[in-house]
């Protein structure tokens, strides 16, 4: 065997034996380190996966959404705005939507009630492929998301009622349900016809909640949005790229919980690094001195320390990252769910697009293993350059 390789293997053997001698301490450090890496990696995997899932599922979100604002809040938009937009060159279709929230007093759940004419929407003629049953067309007909159906606990019944704002009952009939593969979008959805939604929310017949605008040339989205904004003062105009941008931001490192995770991880790491950097124990110093008396060079001792730190930190990284993958993609991020979902009564199972980039793994490695190596090798070098007789005394 190559002499250099044999030397490294012997050093590694000695390192492992040395780690085993102080197994309680080293195992403790490794477990804490792995737990910190697990937290950071879990969060990184979860946010990356949520962002990728959002980008993928919302790729066909409305090109432009027009909302009316009053005193800084959204309010119903008059349908007369449609006529004012007819003259804007480049607009292909405008679809008025009615949507809002319904709070269920019995369960504390929030439903999203949505109504739009599918004939005006892209792929509207294929909407039936996203549901089991039929589309709502008649009076009181609705299609339910799986979360709503479970919350209402209809037990085979097809009829139920919701309260209008004046507390009169609005009878509804279930004619379909969204497929489970759409849960991540439709779990809390009650889809109905615009007339029925107006009746439920008591919205005037000549008003809607917002407008979905589709343009002939997607490259002109921004230009047409500016024209709409100029034509309809007091409105908020959102574009598809902005919607996409929102999802890149909300799950980013800037979010509150991420900061807490990172701060915790950082604090734990600083304590660990400080402990290592504050100097070796008398026993460790004596061990180094004996090794030097036996003929070991300073470089050999540094290599020994390098192997020791690399073994502890590398194993912790491997353990932490593997556990994080299992946690996020096989267990649905159970640890983060309480914070991610809060007090939500309706929440779909997290079926996310597995997204693990090499850059993420490298980032976690650089943030954890490299500083640990530095923090442990420097004090070892300090001890290694002390004369052996002084260290033994």
């Amino acid at each position: 065997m190559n002499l250099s390789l044999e030397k490294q293997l012997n050093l590694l053997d000695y390192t492992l034996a040395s780690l085993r001698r102080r197994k309680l301490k080293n195992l403790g450090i490794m477990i804490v380190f792995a737990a910190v890496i697990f937290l950071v990696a879990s969060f990184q995997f979860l946010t990356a996966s949520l962002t990728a899932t959002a980008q993928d599922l919302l790729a066909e979100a409305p090109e432009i959404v027009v909302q009316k604002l009053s005193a800084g809040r959204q309010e119903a938009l008059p349908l007369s705005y449609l006529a004012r937009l007819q003259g804007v060159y480049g607009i292909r279709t405008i679809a008025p939507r009615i949507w809002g929230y319904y709070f269920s007093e019995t369960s504390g759940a929030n439903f999203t009630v949505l109504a739009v004419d599918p004939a005006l929407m892209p792929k509207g003629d294929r909407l039936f492929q996203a549901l089991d049953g039929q589309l709502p067309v008649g009076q009181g007909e609705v299609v339910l998301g799986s979360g709503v159906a479970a919350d209402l606990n209809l037990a085979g019944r097809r009829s139920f009622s919701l309260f209008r704002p004046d507390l009169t009952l609005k009878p509804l009939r279930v004619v379909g349900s969204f497929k489970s593969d759409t849960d991540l979008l439709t779990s809390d959805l009650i889809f109905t016809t615009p007339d029925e939604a107006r009746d439920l929310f008591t919205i005037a017949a000549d008003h809607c909640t917002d407008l979905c605008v589709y343009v002939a040339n997607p490259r002109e989205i921004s230009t047409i949005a500016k024209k709409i904004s100029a034509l309809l003062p007091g409105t908020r105009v959102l574009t598809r790229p902005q919607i996409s941008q929102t999802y890149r931001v909300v799950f980013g490192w800037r979010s509150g919980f991420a900061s807490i995770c990172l701060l915790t991880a950082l604090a734990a790491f600083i304590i660990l690094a400080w402990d290592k950097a504050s100097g070796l124990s008398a026993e460790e110093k004596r061990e180094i001195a004996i090794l030097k008396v036996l003929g070991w060079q300073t470089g050999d001792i540094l290599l020994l320390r390098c192997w020791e730190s690399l073994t502890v930190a590398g194993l912790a990284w491997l353990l932490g990252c593997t556990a994080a993958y299992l946690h996020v993609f096989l267990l649905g991020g159970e640890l983060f769910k309480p914070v991610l979902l809060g007090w939500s009564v309706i929440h779909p199972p997290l079926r996310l697009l597995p997204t693990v980039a090499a850059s993420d793994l490298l980032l976690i490695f650089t943030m954890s293993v490299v500083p640990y190596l530095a923090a442990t090798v420097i004090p070892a070098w300090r001890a290694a350059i002390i004369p052996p007789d002084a260290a033994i005394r």
Partner: protein
Amino acid sequence: MRPSLVLALFLLAFGILDSALLWQSGQRRAAWPARMAPAGIATAAMGLTDLCLATEARYTRHPAVSDPMAPFMDHPGSLEHFPTGSFWACPVDRQRGGKP
């Protein structure tokens, strides 16, 4: 047995486990477009703008189309009290407010 061999076997076991996870991830990614086709249709046909993850507050149910500063604008002196607010970053976008 040499300790370094024990470590090598341990790393090999981890390598096999991680390779299996990577393979499973690839399989799931490959099956994703077909599995999520109905979701794409639902998005286009109903004009959906947001994922249904947290349904407790409108700014976490529909962060893309709700007021960007809603957590503090429910009433004067309002405090953010929904737990999800601590996980989700406020979608601050200076280009909003009618100036896309």
